[in-house]
């Protein structure tokens, strides 16, 4: 709000007596008032931009001046300058014309109680203040909105780039001499998220794979997946992870313990759920660990489909966790399908138990290959799913 004492008024009236009484009254009311008896002098006064009044009070009937003409000029030259018209018992057409020319108020002379004029002046000034404040807000809002849209576009670009990087870091299907095939697909959600899949055939013997789901959404979750890829690759390369008999037995737990330690050290404030498995392709033996992951992977064999058994804590919450390693002898023909929890959101039942049962029966009705599972669940046709859906399939002896 403009300080009351800073409110400048200009009075235009050729009747010196009336003008003087108005000026005096308004000054006593705390306004800064300048005045003039003719229209030309008024226009000259107004040209001084530093002393532009906040409001003009003008008579409509002055000698040798068409008040409406003056009003028109004021409106053309200073469209934002509010004008109050005071005039003798004018004709209705004057009032209408004045209001058309954007006069803010029209008071009839003689003004018996000048407080009415003060009230009118205050009301008009408050209104103008509100209008300009509104305009300011609107400009600020529009600027903020533009900035937001630009930021959003930048964010979208970042997300697209993030997703590309994430995708580039995942393998593109492998098959081994013994007939093992590993393949995956990810149905992306609206947001960048933390589903990640990786697998490798190590020392031409051990087929190691994991499906990880980083908590949360957005760039930070995606960064964690990239960090994870780096960490696991380094362990495979430098520490011989899954490279020998001993690491076949213990590697999955070792890997999660290492990730857990590093997560605590880096304070990334994300946790991960995992399924990690490693298959000795010479013997068909599998070792696996589970870390807070739902739904459990499904194993399809000639005798039917069932969820693997196992339990373990998620990674990145608890200190000093040891993950139990589970064993499984895989038959000649099998399919092991792992999902991220996003798949549960596309199943119709309400309860988790029913969702899991439905997922199992649907996967059981497929041939077990990645394509068949995805077709059965219609995963690739899904749009706008709230969460990524990652599917990893390890198969052997199935016709593609």
């Amino acid at each position: 709000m403009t300080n009351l004492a800073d409110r400048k008024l200009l009075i235009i009236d050729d009747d010196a007596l009336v003008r003087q009484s108005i000026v005096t009254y308004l000054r006593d009311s705390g306004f800064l008032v300048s005045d003039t008896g003719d229209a030309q002098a008024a226009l000259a006064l107004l040209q001084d931009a530093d002393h532009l009044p906040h409001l003009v009070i003008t008579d409509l009937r002055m000698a040798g001046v068409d008040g409406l003409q003056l009003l028109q000029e004021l409106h053309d030259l200073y469209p934002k300058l509010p004008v109050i018209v005071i005039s003798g018992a004018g004709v209705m057409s004057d009032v209408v014309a004045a209001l058309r020319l954007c006069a803010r108020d029209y008071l009839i002379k003689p003004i018996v109680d000048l407080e009415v004029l003060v009230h009118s002046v205050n009301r008009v000034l408050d209104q103008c203040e509100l209008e300009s404040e509104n305009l300011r807000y609107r400009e600020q809002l529009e600027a903020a909105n533009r900035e937001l849209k630009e930021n959003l576009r930048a964010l979208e670009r970042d997300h697209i780039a993030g997703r590309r990087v994430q995708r580039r870091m995942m393998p593109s299907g492998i098959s081994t001499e013994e007939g093992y095939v590993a393949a995956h697909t990810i149905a992306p959600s609206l947001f960048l998220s933390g589903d990640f899949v990786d697998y490798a055939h190590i020392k031409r013997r051990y087929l190691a794979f994991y499906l990880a789901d980083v908590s949360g959404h957005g760039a930070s979750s995606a960064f964690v997946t990239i960090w994870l890829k780096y960490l696991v690759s380094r362990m495979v390369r430098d520490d011989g992870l899954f490279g020998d008999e001993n690491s076949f037995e213990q590697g999955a737990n070792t890997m999660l313990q290492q990730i857990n330690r590093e997560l605590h050290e880096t304070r990334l404030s994300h946790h991960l759920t995992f399924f990690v498995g490693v298959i000795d392709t010479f013997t068909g033996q599998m070792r696996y660990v589970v870390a807070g992951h739902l739904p459990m992977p499904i194993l399809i064999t000639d005798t039917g489909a069932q969820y693997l058994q196992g339990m373990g804590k998620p990674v990145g919450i608890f200190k000093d966790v040891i993950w139990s390693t589970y064993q499984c002898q895989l038959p000649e023909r099998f399919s092991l399908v792992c999902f991220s929890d996003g798949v549960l959101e596309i199943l119709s039942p309400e309860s988790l138990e029913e969702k899991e049962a439905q997922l199992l029966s649907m996967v059981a009705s497929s041939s077990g290959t990645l394509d068949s599972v995805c077709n059965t669940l219609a995963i690739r046709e899904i749009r706008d799913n709230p969460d990524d859906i990652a599917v990893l399939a390890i198969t052997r002896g199935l016709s593609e």
Partner: protein
Amino acid sequence: MKPGQILVADHQGVYVIKMLGDVRLTFCVSFDQFIDSMFNDSQFASVLFDLSEAEAIDSTTLGLMAKISILGQERHGITPMVLATNPGIQRILRTMGFADIFTIVDKLDAPLLAERALVCDNCDEQQVKARVLEAHQILMGMNAQNAEAFRNLVDMLQNS
């Protein structure tokens, strides 16, 4: 699924965090502020998560629950309680290994079975349990819309 809502209330230092519907904290980073203010409350005694009306809980929320439990253990030596009646939610909590860091119960009118002793400076375990139970009953006796008892955390965080 109902859209998620998190309500919080406290009664003499016993905090109740009630989750309703499909709770997703996808982009809510301010929960941390609430956690800090809760633990900095000189009266803080214990915390109870009421998931009896939650339909689903996302990973971020689970992570924050775990954080509250671990901080509660470290700073105040308390094991938070979780009331979970929905089998799906119970399954998720078990899968996450939360039985180790929470006392998970499926009803509150029975005596609470603590997994481990609750350590508290100036009151014994039974007293703490009684206080948690009493606070919960007082707070739950009011409906979720009762703004006096429950602050809508998300609203509160957005306006703080």
